[in-house]
């Protein structure tokens, strides 16, 4: 089987989410990558070095700069004449583009796979991860999004794939990019961090969240996450949200502070290796999944913890 993987990038750097998707694709067959962007040859060069990659397609065009689905999907569809499966990381970019490709190919997408069981058989979580379904596709071609936390990352060095320039239909004229408000941060990215410190509604407000959670995260070299309640209340930006409908994470250590452990939150972090919970309610559901729990008032515990580390 020939597979085509959508590379996740920002026109400068190749993102780690790509590497787990390459591992999933390699279980199906030969791996080809697509870099769609503008002024993104450096990304294609990095893509060509990934171990196990046979070929890199580079579509360098202003129409692909912001990877608008309206423009990228027809480009992918063109390449699918010579491929059997299209895989994208289950990031917001992948989730935006892949279903559009699937519909144009008249294929039912297999979303958010967590394992490859056979040529056309996969497992995927449903109902906020409270059930795992084994699904078999009967479509002629496969369209898949891949959950990054459950596949190992392919080695980013060792490959020497060729780079082939391709072009697609270009700008559809249906949509245009206006702006991106991104927060620059020195901290590790949530989805690839080894340690995550997450705060919930109990943190009171943005200033308190900043005063308590951030110094602890800094001490541990950790990424900062949050529950939906903390994001809704404006303590932190939307891209901090961990959960069923936010980011899926699986760090070595996940520290949940003042988070009750609703099923929607657990869906995003229960595959973490070690879960630590700090909560004043000893019956909080988070303790049912926590490896290490500390019952008490976070306003006393967290400053003490930060100072003792």
């Amino acid at each position, binding site marked *: 089987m020939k597979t085509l993987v959508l590379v996740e990038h920002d026109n400068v750097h190749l993102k780690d989410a790509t590497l787990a998707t390459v591992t999933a694709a390699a279980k199906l067959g030969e791996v080809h990558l697509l870099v769609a962007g503008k002024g993104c040859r450096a990304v294609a060069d990095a893509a060509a070095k990934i171990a196990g990659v046979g070929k890199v397609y580079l579509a360098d065009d202003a129409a692909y700069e912001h990877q608008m689905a309206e423009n990228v999907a027809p480009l992918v569809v063109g390449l699918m004449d010579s491929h059997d499966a299209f895989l994208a990381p289950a990031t*917001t970019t992948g989730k935006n583009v892949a279903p559009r490709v699937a519909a144009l190919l008249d294929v039912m997408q297999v979303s958010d796979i967590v394992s490859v069981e056979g040529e056309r058989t996969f497992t995927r979580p449903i109902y906020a991860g409270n059930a*795992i*379904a084994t699904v078999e596709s*009967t479509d002629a071609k496969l369209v898949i999004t891949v959950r990054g936390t459950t596949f190992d990352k392919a080695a980013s060095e060792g490959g020497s794939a060729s780079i082939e320039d391709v072009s697609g239909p270009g700008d559809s004229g249906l949509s245009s990019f206006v702006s991106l408000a991104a927060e620059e941060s020195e901290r590790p990215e949530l989805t690839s961090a080894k340690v995550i410190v997450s705060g919930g509604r109990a943190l009171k407000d943005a200033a308190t969240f900043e005063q308590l959670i951030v110094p602890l995260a800094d001490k541990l070299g950790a990424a900062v996450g949050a529950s939906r309640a903390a994001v809704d209340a404006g303590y932190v930006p939307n891209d901090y949200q961990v959960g069923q409908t936010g980011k899926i994470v699986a760090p070595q250590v996940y520290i949940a502070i003042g988070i009750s452990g609703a099923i929607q939150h657990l869906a995003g972090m229960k595959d973490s290796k070690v879960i*630590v919970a700090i909560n004043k309610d000893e019956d909080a559901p988070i303790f049912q999944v926590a490896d290490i729990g500390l*019952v008490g008032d976070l306003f006393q515990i967290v400053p003490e913890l930060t100072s003792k*580390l």
Partner: protein
Amino acid sequence: MKVLVPVKRVIDYNVRPRVKADGSGVDLANVKMSMNPFDEIAVEEAIRLKEKGVASEIVAVSIGPAKAQETLRTALAMGADRAIHVQTPEDVGSEVEPLAVAKILKAIADEEQPGIVLMGKQAIDDDSNQTGQMLAALWGRPQGTFASKVEVAGDSVQVTREVDGGLETVSLKLPAVVTTDLRLNEPRYASLPNIMKAKSKPLAAKTPADYGVDTAPRLKVTRVVEPPVRQAGIKVGSVDELVAKLKALGVA
């Protein structure tokens, strides 16, 4: 401008789903069902567009068994003007997949000619996150997924999207498909008088065949199991003990 709002009846988000012992699926017998939370947000946004004078009529659509009508009545009670129920069989294994839902919605869009289709980003049962994008593709229209802000201006709509790196704003030519994220709005509750009024609002009964759509599934679900259960661990009694544990893990 007409707004079309597809709404799905799903397990209530407060219910913990249980997998059936025979591995055939999740047990929905005697389980509380509700409108998919993202679809409530879509209905609310449509009502706000109408209140602003941007939308003229709100049409709610649901594809599903007889009980999907309850969900449509909820949408009508919130403020939708009329509803279309595309009825599908009750039995297990006859759930309609996103691709077929998108095809039915495309046929309805051709008939109704909405200016915007406002729908949820994700149904919390199948967690597919694909129907809106598929509809946009089949309809040949732009898509604004994961919306936290929607502003219609003339013949286009500006959508602010919740993306992994922050907030992205795009401009889409109308008609367009917009899928909602959690922070777009807080849906209203239907008042008792509006619940009563909703009973007499028009609800059209259709079937997939009326739209010429084959709903045979493309994905075979061969097994549904519980995920591995995590065992609760230990509780420590002090910050010092926690520090020692973190040191032992090699992270501190």
